Structures are given as C-alpha cells and as structure tokens.
C-alpha cells in the first residue's frame, strides 16, 4: 500500500438525499466506527479531499455544484456514490425533476447501493475506492514523469 491509500481524506456532499444516507455517512465518521483508524478524515474542503462521497441523486439545482466540487478536487481523486439514489436515482428515477444518478454529472468510481446505505457498506466502498485511488496515483506519477 502506498501513502495515498493510507491517508484518504473525504468530502461529503448531499445531493437530493432524503437525509437517510447522510445520517449513515455521519454515523460512519463517529467514534463507533472510528474511520480515522484507516487515516480517513472528513474535510470540509474539496481542495484537501481525495474521496468524494455523494448522497442523493442529481437534479437541475445541484448538478453544477456536484461538478464544481469534483473539479476543485485535486488529482488523483475518487468518487463514491453512497446509496441507491446516488447510484441510479433509485425510486426517484422517473421524477420530472431528477436527472439521474451522480454519474450523470461526474465519473463515478464506486457504487454503494442501499436505502439507506449502511455505514459498513460505506466504509467498504471507500476501501474499494482506495485501490482505484492507488491506480490513479500511479498513472498521475507516470504522466508527470513523461511531462518532465
């Protein structure tokens, strides 16, 4: 494991979630699950974050926000869609105001379904994301080398 996967800092954004998944994300960050054991820290700032946890689906109101947060995160970065709404818009799929899952706005790396998604599943998703983060990090290092 390289240093990248030992220190994944996350940022959490609530799209149009019913708050069920949000509560579970927060639950995962409580002392009970103690994700800091894996170096995970919740940052409030996209510029510091490596992993983007999105809950809820994407609509006209929030699509630009989701995109902006993603854009402002510094490479390498990973997106984890938390809950079924974030994965595919879930039961709101056909609503007139819903665009769809998070992947309609930004590339998603890990889909973690559930309604609401369980903290264990979120942690599992983040851990899966770490593998992808590692790959991306290697790719970035390689391209940097090439650039030089």
């Amino acid at each position: 494991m390289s240093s990248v996967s030992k220190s994944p800092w996350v940022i959490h954004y609530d799209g149009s979630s019913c708050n069920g998944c949000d509560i579970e994300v927060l639950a995962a960050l409580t002392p009970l699950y103690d994700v800091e054991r894996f170096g995970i820290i919740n940052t409030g700032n996209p510029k510091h974050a490596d992993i983007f946890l999105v809950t809820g689906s994407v609509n006209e109101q929030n699509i630009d926000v989701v995109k902006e947060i993603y854009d402002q995160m510094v490479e390498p970065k990973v997106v984890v869609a938390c809950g079924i709404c974030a994965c595919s818009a879930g039961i709101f799929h056909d609503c007139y105001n819903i665009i769809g899952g998070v992947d309609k706005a930004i590339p998603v790396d890990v889909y973690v379904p559930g309604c609401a998604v369980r903290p264990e599943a979120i942690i599992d998703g983040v851990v899966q994301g770490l593998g992808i983060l590692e790959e991306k990090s290697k790719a970035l290092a390689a391209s940097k080398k090439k650039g030089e």
Partner: protein
Amino acid sequence: MELIVSLVGVPCLAALLMLAVRCDKARNVLAVASVAAIGLLSVVFAVRYLGESPVYFVLPESTAGVLGIVNFLIEIAVGAFILAYAIRYKRMLALGLALVQLVMAVWIEVSVLAGHEFSTQMRVDQLSVIMALIIGIVGSGICVYALGYMKDFQEHHPEQKDRRPWFFALMFAFLAAMFNIVFSDNMAWIYTAWEVTTLCSFLLIGFTKTDEAINNAFRQIVMNMLGGVAFQVAIAFAALNGLPLVFSEFLMAGAMSAGTAAAALFAVPVVLLAFAGMTKAAQMPFHTWLLGAMVAPTPTSALLHSSTMVKAGVFLLIKLSPLFLVFPIASGMVVIVGGLTFLFCSFLAISQSNAKRVLAYSTIANLGLITACAGVGTPEAIWAAIFLVVFHAVAKSLLFLCVGTAEHHIGSRNIEDMDELFERMPRLARFMMLGIMTMFIAPFGMLVSKWATLVSFATTGQVLLLVLLAFGSAATFMFWGKWLGKLAGIAAHRESEEVTVNKTEWSAIILMAVLVVACCVGMPFISSAFVEPYLAGVYGMAPLAIGFDNMAIMAIIVAFIVVVLFGTLGKAKKKVVPVYMAGITVDSSKRVFKGALGGEREATSRNWYLEGIFGEKRLDKPATIVTAAVLVVCLVASIFAGGTLGSVSLPMYLQTASLNESVFSTLIGIVVFLVVGPVLGCLLAGLDRIISARMQGRVGPPLLQPYYDVRKLIAKDDVSVNTVEGTYITMALIFTLIAGGVFFGGGNFLMCVFLVTLSALFFILAAYSSRSPYAEIGADREILQVMSYEPMILFVAVGMLLTMGTFDVAGLFHGSAPMIVAAWPIFIGLLFVLTIKLRKSPFDLSYSHHAHQELVKGVTTEMSGRTLAKVEVMHWCENVLFMAWVAMFFVWSNPASIALAVVVAAAVYFLEIWIDNNFARVKWQSCLKWAWIVSLVAGLVNILGLVLYIIFA
C-alpha cells in the same frame, strides 16, 4: 567649514531660484541639479567626517556677528509671517503666541544675549553626519519625487492656481533649515532654524488653502509655537543664570552638574527643551497636529512629517539624553509620554483605513518609541534610538511616496481600494510591501532596532516601558499585517495600471527602496562606522545591544527576502485553479457565486478595524488626558524640584551576556533542527491524534499517520490558486527552520521569536494572496491570534534576561537554578498563550488540525498538495520549537535537568491536548481579551518582582 556652508547655502539658493523660475522644464532641470548637488555634498561631507571625533568650527568674530544679525532678522521675519497669517485668518490663539514669541525674540536678542560671546558656532559629530545624510539623500529624493507628483497634483486640482514655485521654494528652504539645526552649536541659531521648519510646515500644510487645510495648519502652528516658546524660555533662563549657551557645552556642563547646586538650575532648561522636542515630535497630547498635517501634498508628508522635521524633535531629545540620566523627573516625563504615545498610536492605527492616517499614526508611535529610548538615556537605548531614526526615515518616506503614487493612479488613499495592487501596479506594490515589512518585521531594520530597544529597556528595568512596548508591538503587527495582506491579493490577470507613473516618481521610489535595503543589509557597518563612534564620544563606551553575528544573520535574511520579492515571486509555473466559493462560481476573479437561493452574489471582505476596541472615539480622549496630565505634572515638578533629586544613577543596569551567537553555531543548529524538528514533530502530531482519539473513546490512527498524510499530499497533483502562494509557504517553512536552528544552536531567544513571527507573516500572506473569502477570514483571525500571544512571548524573553542574565539559550545551562523558580508566573502565561500558538481549542480560530472545520479550513482553504504538505511540516517543526520553549524553563547547569525538562514538556503537551478536547471554541474577542489580561497580569507581576529583587538584593 566650506562643506557646511555649501550644505546650507545650496538649498537656500535653490529656494530662491524656485521662486524665480516659472517654466516647468527649467524648474525640473534646476531642481534636479540642486538636488544632485545637495545629495552629493552630503555624501562628500559624510565621507570627510566619517569616524572623526566631534569637530568644532569657530567663526571669526565679524562673520559670527553678521550671521547672528541675519539669524535675528530671520527670526523676526518668521514671527511677522505667522502674525500676518494669524491676523488674516483671525486666529486669536496663534496671534497671541506669535506676539509672545516676537517679544521674547526681541528681548532675548536685545537684552539677554547682548554682548554674549559664543566660543563656537558649529559642531559636527557622527550623529550630525547621520542626520545630514538623511536630510541630504532622503530629502533630495523626495524633492525629485515632488516634481512629478506636483505635476499630477496640479492636473488633479485644476481649480487651483499653479503655486508650484512657492511649493518648491518652501521645500528647499526647509532643507537648509534642517541642516542648520543639526550643525549649529549655538542655541539661538538652532532655535531660529527650528522656527523656520515650523513655518515651512505651516505653509505647506495650508498649501491648498481649503478650510480643512487652514484649520490643520493653525493647529500645527499653535502646538509647535508652544514648543517654540518653551525653547525660548529655556534659552533666556540659561542665559540669565549663566549657563552655557553653546549647546555642546550646555550638555556637558549639565551632565557634570549631577549632585551639585547647579543641577537645580539646569533642571529647568532641560525639561523645557525636552518639552519643545516632544511638541515637534508630535508626542501625545500634541499628536493631532501631525494627523492634520496629512492634508498636505504627499511629498510634504514624506519629507517634513515623517522623515526629517519631526526627527528634529527626537534629534534634540537624543542630544539631551545624557542629561536624562541626571534629571529623573525630566527623564520620567519623556519616557512615560513617549511610551504611552507608542502604545496608544499603535492601537489607534488599527482602526484607520486611510493609508496616510495609518502612516501618520505609525510615525507618531515610532517617534514615541524613539522619545522613550532617549529618555532612558543609556548607550544601548541611544543606539536603538538612532537606528530607529534612520530606518524610520528611509522606510516611511518610501511608503509615503508609494501611497502618493498609488493615490494618483487608483484615485484613493483608502487601504481597502488597494485591493489587488499586487497585480494592478506590480512594481509599486512590491516596493510598498518592502516598505511595510521594513517597518514591522524582523529581519528588517525597524524591528532589529526595536529588538535593541527591548534589550535596553529590560537591562535598565523599565517595567512600564516593557509592558507598553510589548502590547504596542503586537498592535503594530496587526495594522501592518492586514495592509500587507490587502496588497498581496491576486485575483485575475488584470492589466497593469502603472505605465503612466512619472519617471521622477519611479527614480525617487527606487532610490528609497535601495536605501532601505542598503541600510538593512549594511546595519552592522552603519553601527560600527557611525553609531558606535558617536556613543563612544558621548558616553565613553559603546556597548552593543545586539551582537554582530546576529545582525549579520538578519542582513543575510533581508537579502534573501528582497531577492525573492523582486526576483522570483510570481514567476513560478503552476496550474492555476479558481478559488473555493462554497457555491457555484460565476466569476472567480470578481468573487461572484451562485448561492443556495439561486441569485448571484458577490463575496466582499474588508480588513478588520476593531473600532469598538481601538477606535479613536474610544481611545483618543483618555490617551490625551493621561499624557497631558503626565506632561503637566512632570513639567511643574521638574521646574520646582528638578534639581533636588540630583544625581540618581540608574537603579539597575544589567549587562547582557552574549554566549553563543555565532553564525557557525546557528548553522549547526539549523542542520540539527532540520532532522529533529520534522521527525520529532511528526511523532508528536501522531501522538496528539492518538491521544485525542482515546479521549473520545476510539482507537485512532497509527502513530505515523501525519507522515502518511504528508507523503500523500506530496504525491498529489501540483495546482494552486496563484503563482505566489507556494513561494510564500516555502519561505514560511524556511524561516521556521532557521528559528529552530537559532534556538537549538543555543542562540538568541528573541531572534528565534522574531523569526517565528516572520514565518507566521508569510503564512498569512499566502492566505491573503489567494483572495479567497475563506482564506482571508482565516488570515484575519491568524493576525488577531498573533497579536493576542505576542506580548506574552516578549515577556518570556524579558523574564529569561532578568533571571538568567542572557537572552542566549546556551546561557540556560550556566544557571544555578532553572528559570521556573523565579519566573513561574510568566510560565503560566506562556502556557495560556501556547494554546493559541498551537491553534488548539478554545483558541483554534484561524484553523484547526482536527476535524473541527468551521469556515471550511481557514488559512489553508486554498492550499493543496505540496503547499499543504509544507504547512504540515512547518507545524510539526513549530510544535517541537514551542515545546522546547516550555522545556527551557526547567534547565540549569545540572545535565540531568534536561530529562526533567523533557518530562515537563511532554506533560504540557498532554495538557494542551486535554484542553483541546474539553473546551469549546470561543469568539475572537474572548481570545484577545483573555490572552492580553493573562499576559498583562503574569508579565507585569513577574517582571516587576524580578526588577525589584535585582534592585534591592
């Protein structure tokens, strides 16, 4: 002698020429020629008299007689001039004072001085050489600047008649008068020149003839005439009582009079002259005239009201300073009023947004400090005072010139409007930043002089002055720091607006900048070539408050900062990204974003002015009353009982031991700290996180987690919101490492403190440069935190001197007992402010290392990747350094004490973590209030106790 005559004569001639010449081009040529002549003459003069002991000039009796009459005529003319203006504008007070002055002048000339023979007329020592260089070079530079400035000024004020010939005539006449003040040894002549400068200032303040200008001009003349009358009374009193009227003889006889009957006679003129000097130097309660003087065109403010004329006041006080050792009441007056002026004006400057007013307050404050140094009167204090004069003259004129140019190009002198100047006027902004840094931060000259001031106050046990200095300096950091931040902001690639700046303005600004850098880098040389010979001449000894090696280290750092500021800053190649707006960014450069409710909004931010705490409404009146009361009481006491106290030697006069201040040991310290700092700091940070986790009932991360974090950050992509942020952070890191090197190399603790502050400033600048709303708020709060903890840190240094007799860390190992024994109140104070310095709750205002994340992430909002990694490493190093500060209290000559110190430091670190986890964040008001109360109580009680112990034991 010819040199002196030409130094006085050339400006006189130039003044007459200026009056005669009406054509712009001819005036430019003539002015530049005369200025070049004056500048050159002053340099030749300096080289001629470099390092010589005082030289006296005796004129043939006939010439002296003629000159005496000329002097008297000038005096009468000045009086008549003021009288005429007072009648024209119906100012009764000015009229009355002018009449008094005229009558006095005639009386003194006709009756008191009739037949009096002066043995010498002129005198040159190294202090006059320094002053002549300031007047000659800085003065002529400002005159050149004025050529371009006044052209713009006339274009900006088309409704006014072109009175430029008059303006330039006054400027040159003023230079001649200033030369006279510094060279004359005849008190009557000094007085004449003194009054000429007052009149020049009066006419230049009233130059625009608006109601405001006229009012302020009369305020100036009334206050300065009070000083003038005091000067006259001093001369008359001295003459009537048979005291010498040759200034150098007067000073010598006064110093010898200690303990004799003559002391009672000397007390009166000494205190009156001191009073005159203080009015000229705009000390409270007479500070309002200098504030009002800011209506004058900017070159006037630069020349008369910051770099030279007001310096005549402190020049007189510095000359008098050996006498203050003999006359404690006069000394008390000067010291207390000067110190209070420094404190209050530094506070008041925080509340001002008008750049010229900030400069004015800072000028008064610094004059106050110089005044206080003169009042202390020891060679160390005078060393500091002279350097304060030099650095203030060059740095302040640079700043005034920059503000003047900025005003003509951005149409405002409000600091808020200087937002983004770094891009709008890139060269000018850098010069302004250089000027500001020179004013308040180590390694630049003003702070090094302030450092010497602190040493001289501490060695003489001036408890009150130490307290005033500590709190005043903290305020200085606030008002300069936030201005610097405004300038440093970078938003978009805007067009440079400075293409239209006049060539003459550029040349003057560049001259001042070169002078600033030359003085800072050449400080050790100036000290040994000018200041030490002067002190040796006056006191017979020239002890240094700051060691040569320390000055050399500072000089090297200055050179480094200047190279970065004007060379590489902003040239780094970076992927530039927009700032974080917590919404949908519409226009990053204008800070417009789409908020939660849809509409577009613009984020705006202003500097902090803290009106409710430091505003004029709140402080001005009490300050005026207190200082006026001190002045009156001391004047009266000194006149009636000044001599009776007679010879009082200083109650205490410590010698500071300089033990380990070589460049070499600092280098070794840096190498050691380069390894120890990050390694130990990383482990401490990991420990902090684990202990915090345990306190919250969880396991927490591995011990090396901070190391993993930094490794990851380094591997991230290298992007930034601008091209300078990374450079600032690198500098902050470097200065932290040097600070640690100084400490662990056993060097000077004060230097370590100043370098930590320098590092904090660059950290703050990095945040301001992003011009992100969140980073700016973080930076504002960080400045406030620095202001909160700074006084206590200075008290720690003073406590170290008073207990161990040295500022050198190596000296701790020579003590027979650790510092804690006698300095435990200071230790408690240090523990209190340590929480602020470590940014731990309840004082984690600017940002926090843990998961608290109000306002996104404060100072570090825009930092990412490598930059953030550097910030982390910097904090590791800082933590180690601060714990070493704690440990330092428990070390003495017993080697086992190191183990004890380490144990205590570990316990304190644990205590800080416990506090962090058990207290909720407070508002900034509470942070400032409690930090200052604790510092005041702990510092004052402890230092007072130590001083009393030293005096009586």
